[in-house]
């Protein structure tokens, strides 16, 4: 009933117009749209279900199995080497250090805090978890990376002061665990921190 020849032609013309309107380069726009991930759109809804490989119902059960297993096996350091963060507790002697906006280097004034933390850790043979945190400004994934770098900066400093790297685990929470939720510089400054937790060996 539908899809008569002329109408299809029209549809193509209109599509061309739409693509050109978006892309500003009519010639390349239509080419560029061809290999899109949803390129199966030109097929029927039924055949859509079979489109890309990993989860079509048959291959789904086959493919993901190695996918699930393989990364775990190719990450020998992961299991066991990562104690559960829940087992760590804060101690009053270990103080937070804070960071400038968008920075992860230890501020000169904070070095003495890390010196004191290192000195306490030398006389208390605990495992250490260093959390890296960010303020809410910044996008999620970037902040996860930035928080990690803050934790790592603090870790590197402790190691430079003679704490064994093997005692230390780091974790980034990005902007996900703020101490303070106001939208002020004071508050943001409190959130840009490395926090120290310990657990007995």
């Amino acid at each position, binding site marked *: *009933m*539908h*899809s008569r*020849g*002329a*109408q*299809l*032609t*029209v549809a193509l*013309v*209109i*599509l*061309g*117009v*739409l693509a*050109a*309107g*978006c*892309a500003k*380069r*009519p010639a*390349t726009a239509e080419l*560029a*749209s061809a*290999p*899109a*991930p*949803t390129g199966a*759109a030109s097929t029927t809804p039924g055949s859509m279900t079979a*489109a*890309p490989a*990993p*989860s079509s119902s048959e291959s*789904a059960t086959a*493919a*993901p199995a190695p*996918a*699930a297993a393989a*990364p*775990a096996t*190719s*990450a020998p*350091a*992961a299991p066991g*080497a*990562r104690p559960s963060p829940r087992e760590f507790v804060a101690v009053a002697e270990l103080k937070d250090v804070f960071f400038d906006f968008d920075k992860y280097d230890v501020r000169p004034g904070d070095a003495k805090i890390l010196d004191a933390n290192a000195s306490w850790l030398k006389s208390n043979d605990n495992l250490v978890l260093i959390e890296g945190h960010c303020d809410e*400004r*910044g*996008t*999620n*994934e*970037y902040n*996860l990376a*930035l928080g*990690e*770098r803050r934790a790592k900066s603090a870790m590197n400093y402790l190691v430079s002061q003679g704490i064994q790297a093997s005692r230390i685990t*780091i974790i*980034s929470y990005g902007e*996900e665990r*703020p101490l303070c939720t106001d939208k002020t510089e004071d508050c943001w400054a409190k959130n840009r921190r490395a926090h120290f937790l310990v657990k007995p060996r």
Partner: protein
Amino acid sequence: MKLRRIVALVLVLFAVVLPGPAPVMTPPAADAQGMDVFLNVTGGGTKKLNIAIPEFTVVAGADTAGNGKQLASVTGADLTFSGLFSVVAATGTIPANNAEALRRSWTDFAAAGAHAGLHGLLALRGDRAEVEMRLYDLTNPDHRLIASKKFEQPIASARRLAHKVADEIVMQFTGERGIADTKIAYASGPRGAKEVVMADYDGAGAASVTRNGSINLSPTWSPDARSLAFTSYKQGYPDLYRAFPFERRPEQTLAAFAGINTSPAFSPDGRSLALTLSKDGNPEIYVLDLVSGTLRRLTRHAGIDTDPTWAPAGQMLAFASDRGGAMHVYVMDPQGTNVRQLTTSGFHTQPRWSPRGDMIAYTQRTGAHEIWVVDADGSNARRLTNGGGDNQSPTWSPNGRHIAFQTNRQGRWQIYAMLVDGSAQEPITKNAGDSTSLSWSPRLP
């Protein structure tokens, strides 16, 4: 020759919908009926195709839930969202199997300015709902039937019938299926307790994907729209998992290396996943083969490399890096070579390659965050939002005509969508809590 009239009308109507330069279009080779349209698009405009959508007529079963009215309303909202249609208001239904009543209705709608009419016929049988859509051309006195098609769904997901009808109507007038039958996945909840949820693309029908009580972030759809990769702290550390929200199937662990496991991005063929890992010292981009489980490192730099995104043909990736000082968008090939900086001056994260391949959306930080797009060759960077608050996490509709994003312009983080030129910025979610970290699905299977 009536056919040619509607053809010409539709062309004119659509030609003025999208702003832009004035490309001179010639149609593909004329078919047997000798179509010969030569179109010169000049400038923008807001003229849309007016479509009449009376309540769907119930032809079987008892519509106690008011589905006939709701489906017409949702179809209308979908077509309005497309930016291509204007819905002509209507009340009442057209009786079934009554040619004269249909003719009178369409005549009235045509007089009210409608160019096309949708007659939906709804049959309710047990727990199934079936809709037959009949699409009419109201610009000629015969009210020619343009298309008719049937869709069926469990009655519990009857809303999808409206989305499918809307997508078919868009298909009839543009040659490409619409994007209403899609989902948006996002993280919902306050910091420290975010779960992944998914909803229809218009925000309706939100349903939990995760319920693990930890922090869950960055849900990302696979190209077959059947699974979501996401970062979760459910085992304590930020690891990557894969959920199958439409199936009873356990979550898979994709990457649980020491350090961060973030920023999942499925390759267009669904066989691999680009991701950010810091297991080798600092955040770098890798590609995980989902079949063999092998891991390939793409970036080697002391800076932060994150936010990978694939070009639609899989021949390139874009990512964000601070190797040049501030974060900027770079592109590289899937071997990690031929790295090229795409954006300069500013602070840019979250690049997302458009499904058409022609543009990359990203988040620029200048005090507040704004959504920008840049052509894939690095030219023509332009800002799309100017919303008073922060605007982040752009995600493309499968046809590349819309971008959804998170904004706190009204207080809480909510999901909004806009057309790719930045117009028509409208809320998708109006949730009580924060809705962030979103991903627009491909068309559902």
